[in-house]
């Protein structure tokens, strides 16, 4: 009993009914569109301070509360996508049951009634139905592989069909969209996107993860052998080219030039040309002790730490800045930044503008540091990614295109050729066609059939 059933299942069937409705699909698609619009109007992934200064206080609070600063990764955006996926799944399964019955029928069923209003052509002929029967059947058999012949009053009917499987096209699209969502899920769970800058001649074995402070070890090293940027006469950039070597277990495994649009792929990692710039190659540092007045010269790279003689502590050269703003205001030009540390004392940041060698005297420390001479080098900025979701996503892309094509440009067409003797001398031949969509295409085929039958 349907009523009893409903009571038994209760909320579960109610839930299924909700997710099986196309109204929900329409609502979800429009909601996703609306949310996406908001995401393009509010700049995404900016630091908190950006929103506080740009918007009014209440608006900024609302933005943080609803995570509109990272809209496309917010829980409620994901909830909408999940609901859409559930909607597609439930809708498709519910309807597939009926469609399977039609598509995987052993013997197709034809009913004359369906063709009554779909006559494409009717013409008289002197031939008898008996004369025509074999010819018509063979003609349809040749084109459609199977036919169904039926004797009628004073004549015959032949039915044929094609494209029954195309009824599944729309489900292929839906399945492909679900597959796409699975692919993106794989991407977001096990994929990563990182960035690294490598000065010419140097190598790195880990990258900085995007949108986080973490670094990711690669299991091999990337060395930048060379970086070159070329320009057109007009000054537009022509090409950014990095020569990269992959070093694993102390051996160079491969060397390749990469440019934008032609990345290097190694062990599931993709290495893309992303940016470039200049950095410091090596610096001649001078450490002058206040106590003894002696100067010590040392050659350093960015990232190096050395012990200053006379037990004056350690110095780490951390950064090179193209134009440094001292106290956040005065531009003191290209500068090196380092950290000096001595036991028990608080580590101190030291700024060393190249143009002002005695700048560090202002600090009044036990040691004065100056950068005497330095050489610049180009660095290449590389985007490093690993994304196991890509093959799944690409497969879904192919299926989506194929599915949309089948769903909209092909159809399940049925044809009927009927020949009836109306008097002793003439037979009327009727060719009819129906289709689940795109009727004109089916009618065109029927016209061609009629032409051929006339010639029999």
């Amino acid at each position: 009993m349907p009523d009893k059933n409903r009571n038994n299942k209760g909320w579960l069937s109610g839930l299924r009914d909700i997710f099986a409705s196309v109204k929900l699909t329409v609502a979800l698609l429009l909601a996703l569109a609306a949310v996406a619009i908001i995401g393009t109007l509010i700049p995404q992934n900016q630091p908190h301070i950006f929103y506080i200064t740009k918007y009014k206080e209440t608006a900024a609070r609302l933005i943080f509360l609803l995570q509109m600063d990272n809209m496309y990764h917010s829980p409620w955006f994901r909830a909408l996508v999940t609901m859409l996926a559930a909607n597609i799944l439930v809708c498709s399964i519910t309807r597939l049951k009926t469609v399977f019955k039609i598509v995987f029928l052993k013997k197709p069923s034809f009913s004359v009634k369906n063709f009554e209003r779909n006559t494409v052509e009717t013409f008289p002929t002197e031939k008898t139905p008996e004369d025509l029967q074999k010819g018509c059947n063979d003609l349809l058999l040749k084109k459609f592989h199977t036919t169904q012949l039926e004797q009628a009053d004073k004549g015959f009917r032949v039915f044929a069909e094609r494209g029954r499987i195309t009824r599944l096209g729309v489900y292929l699209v839906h399945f492909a969209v679900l597959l796409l969502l699975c692919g993106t899920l794989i991407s977001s769970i096990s994929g990563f996107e990182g960035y690294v800058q490598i000065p010419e001649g140097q190598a790195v074995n880990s990258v900085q993860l995007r949108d986080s402070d973490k670094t990711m070890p690669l299991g091999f090293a990337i060395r930048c052998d060379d970086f070159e940027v070329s320009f057109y006469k007009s000054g537009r950039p022509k090409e950014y080219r990095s020569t990269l070597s992959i070093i694993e277990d102390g051996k160079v495994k491969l060397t390749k030039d990469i440019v934008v649009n032609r990345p290097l792929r190694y062990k599931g990692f993709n290495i893309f040309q992303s940016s470039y710039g200049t950095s410091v190659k090596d610096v001649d540092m001078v450490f002058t002790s206040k106590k003894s007045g002696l100067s010590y010269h040392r050659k350093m790279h960015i990232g190096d730490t050395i012990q200053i003689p006379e037990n004056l502590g350690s110095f780490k050269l951390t950064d090179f800045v193209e134009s440094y703003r001292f106290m956040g205001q005065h531009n003191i030009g290209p500068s090196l930044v380092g950290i000096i540390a001595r036991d028990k004392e608080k580590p101190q940041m030291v700024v060393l503008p190249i143009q002002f060698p005695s700048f560090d005297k202002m600090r009044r420390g036990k040691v004065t540091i100056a950068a005497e001479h330095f050489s610049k080098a180009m660095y290449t900025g590389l985007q490093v990614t690993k994304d196991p979701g890509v093959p799944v996503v690409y497969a879904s892309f192919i299926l989506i295109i194929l599915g949309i094509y089948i769903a909209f440009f092909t159809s399940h067409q049925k044809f009927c050729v009927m020949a009836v003797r109306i008097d002793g001398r003439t037979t009327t031949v009727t060719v009819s066609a129906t289709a689940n969509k795109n009727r004109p295409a089916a009618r065109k085929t029927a016209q061609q059939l009629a032409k051929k039958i006339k010639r029999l």
Partner: protein
Amino acid sequence: MLNSYILSYTTFIYGLAMVCYMSGLIFKSKIASKAGTVITIIAAVCNLLGIIIRWAESYKLGFGHIPLSNLYESLVFFAFAVSVVYLVFEARFSTRAFGAATTLFAFLALAYASLKPGAGQEIQPLIPALKSNWLTAHVITCFLGYSAFAIAFGISVIYLLTAGKDDRASVHNKGIIPPPETLDEIIYQTVVFGFFFLSIGIITGAVWANTAWGRYWGWDPKETWSLITWFIYATLLHARLMRGWQHKRIAWFAIIGFGAVLFTYFGVNLLPGLHSYQ
């Protein structure tokens, strides 16, 4: 350069075609409408010639590439695509009722391309990001989609202007404008055509992004807006096929959808992003 001259003249040929189609509608003259078709074909041929010559001229300059790389070139291709897609649908439905709207689009696109400063009328070499075979596939499919949506928009406007009128006295009976059912069918079919190509356009764009930047989707404003457009037309198709929406509601939907197309094309250039034609 030669291509610019040809393309400027093509603008006026489209304008002339539009005048013919318009007179056909206003004076209910079939001859004028037929002249419109002939002139549109001539304009489309000139348009294609302009594109080919521009392509050849870029090789003469020493940095040859298919002319699909900036706002000017994309507008020129849009004018060509919209007229070709239109001519196909004109032949398919044997009606010239929406010729005026379509040639107006082609005319506006070319006029805007020539007149807008900084659209990129002079041939420029490709910047590194655009040096990819995916450029051709991505731009052509996207613009075939946009063209079909533009035509659907044009028909929807005509539909909404004529559908409410008294049938006996209206233009429908004279065979100038097809009956509302046919217009409805043409809107549906152009939207389906556009949806198919927009889907391929988004997908080729995603594959290209993955080869250039290592991510197939990054919520760049243009990407997002193309997805919004896709959502709107997907809604239209579901509403029509599953809920039986027709006529005025579908026409309004096609108009809103085209608004999203326009924003994807032009509006996004106001926002910073990878597609801003700079």
